[in-house]
């Protein structure tokens, strides 16, 4: 079977049982000079939920962003078994020029040790100008470990990146989102992890092609969990699109029940501030903030929440914040897209009434 998307060796064919060549052989075989000290490397994270490896949205976002920097090459690196080849094609359509496919059958799962070794090896060979990873749970480990192994700096959790004549300007929130810092790196590659959702999805360029470079690798020894059990319900706050969050201003349990009823009707997840947990009105696993969950829903509806810094830490990444608070000077109003100055109880009653009316009108 001839497969022209593999350019590992001059035969340009896919080899039965996978490419057997060693790293050193590979290096000699193709022209690596083309990659030297240029280009933007993106760790392409894959999703295997339906068996088929596909790109995670954040990887598409990062490829698109790197594409928009300048006209340097965009080099993706992905880890996976043979079948991850399909994901490489997808990566081209989102802006990658070259994909390094670090290959082993066990790489459907994240292996911190192996991925660190693989990433370091490829980076040392390619010498990209920048190296960007998603600030996913995995990226937050792989990034700093790789940076430390290579002895370079890293800026974590960026919300914006700009490229200025080869210099990467990395912007990230600090102090619970109250300050934004723009950071430069004086080592190469310039490394950053970026929050998922920081950039829009790029347009797909169907039929855009690139080069796949195979990088066979033996897994490094790593620690595996003794056991994994599915976490109980309630842990889904971090993926919720719509969150209704209540604070001390909710006032009484009757209002809390109304909020829950509305959440039910709108398909929202309930969350709360620490104040509400301390009252014993909601469980700690629903708390948002520095000592609770970090959430980034499309809409965060804050009911009677003052907006303390510790609370903001957990929700300032929300795309849209709507706040209801009777104190016009409450901190939450400063960060809200829509501020309603008024009583929570009254707001809930009206909203519930409206939803009931709509329902009645439907019937």
């Amino acid at each position, binding site marked *: 079977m001839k497969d022209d998307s593999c350019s590992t060796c001059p035969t340009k064919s896919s080899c039965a049982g996978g490419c057997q060549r060693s790293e050193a052989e590979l290096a000699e075989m193709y022209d690596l000079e083309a990659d030297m000290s240029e280009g933007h490397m993106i760790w392409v994270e894959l999703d295997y939920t339906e068996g088929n490896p596909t790109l995670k949205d954040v990887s598409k976002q990062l490829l698109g962003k790197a594409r928009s920097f300048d006209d340097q090459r965009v080099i993706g690196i992905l880890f996976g078994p043979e079948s991850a080849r399909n994901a490489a094609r997808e990566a081209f359509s989102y802006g990658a020029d070259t994909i390094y496919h670090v290959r082993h059958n066990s790489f459907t799962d994240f292996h911190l040790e192996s991925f660190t070794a693989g990433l370091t090896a490829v980076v040392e060979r390619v010498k990209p100008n920048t190296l960007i990873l998603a600030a996913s749970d995995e990226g937050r480990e792989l990034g700093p470990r790789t940076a430390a192994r290579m002895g370079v700096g890293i800026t974590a959790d960026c919300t914006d990146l700009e490229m200025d004549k080869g210099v990467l300007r990395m912007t990230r929130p600090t102090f619970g989102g109250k300050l934004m810092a*723009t950071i430069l790196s004086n080592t190469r590659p310039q490394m950053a992890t970026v929050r998922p959702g920081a950039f829009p999805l790029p347009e797909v360029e169907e039929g855009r092609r690139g080069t796949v470079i195979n990088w066979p690798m033996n897994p490094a020894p790593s620690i595996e969990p003794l056991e994994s059990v599915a976490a109980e319900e309630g842990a889904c706050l971090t993926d919720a699109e719509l969150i209704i969050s209540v604070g001390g201003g909710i006032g009484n349990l009757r209002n809390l029940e109304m909020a829950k009823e509305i959440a039910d009707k709108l398909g929202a997840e309930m969350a709360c501030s620490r104040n509400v947990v301390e009252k014993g009105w909601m469980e700690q696993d629903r708390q948002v903030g520095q000592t609770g969950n970090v959430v980034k829903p499309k809409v965060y509806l804050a009911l009677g929440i003052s907006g303390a810094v510790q609370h903001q830490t957990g929700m300032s990444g929300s795309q849209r914040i709507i706040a209801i608070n009777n104190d016009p000077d409450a901190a939450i109003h400063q960060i809200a897209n*829509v501020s309603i100055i008024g009583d929570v109880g009254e707001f809930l009653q009206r909203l519930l009434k409206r939803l009931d009316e709509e329902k009645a009108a439907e019937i």
Partner: protein
Amino acid sequence: MRILLLVKQVPDVSVSGMEDGKVPRGGPSVLNPQCEYALDAAIGLKEDGDEVVAVCMGPPSARESLFRCLELGADRAYHLCDPDFAGSDVWATAKTLARLVTDKESDFDYILCGQRAADGETGQVPSMVAELIGIPQVVGCYRFSREKGSLHVWRERSGWIERFELEPKALVAVEKGCNVHRLPSISDFLGARKKDLMTISRTDISIEREECGLNGSHTVVKKVHVLTSSREGIKLHLDDTSFAIDTVLEAVRRREP
């Protein structure tokens, strides 16, 4: 079992607030909340004959955070304190901490630390320290127990609760705690100021001036600005208009910026 506990002191933003984008110096400071959990975990794991050694890099005032560790049951402490360490980024911080460990406490069994500092960094230091020392890591942990000489830790990731068995020489970053309101024993509390708290300056460990602090940092903060509001806020009064409800419902249903 010897546990090294890496902690950080952070400004207490709930008290001091911020003006003109400057974090007030010399304001009240506290032990970083996630380090508090790590301390709690370390003390919870400690049995007779074990040692918990706290390590903190920071200005002279950071001694207070170390005293807190000693009061709650840590046995000894190191305070990495030297003007040469000032201005460290994550890399320089990790390097300095790792040097202290390899120079002075290389016979540790486990390193525990808070996952993230409340004042800016985002969990890079634990992974970097583990890498520089050359040991495995498990981050995001919230539960800990001892089973026959090894440490079991739990964490939650992508909807799964994972349990790891760790042989000695591993780093564990603590994200949450179960029992934060541990009270000190009277003897620890009263004896804390008599426990061994060693101040370490740069020349006490094998790190050059160029390798630490601002000089040794690989990243530079180019500018900082206050985020008053990145969002174009609409202000509405609930009063007697249904407009507020309309706006909210529309925003909720559209779910787009």
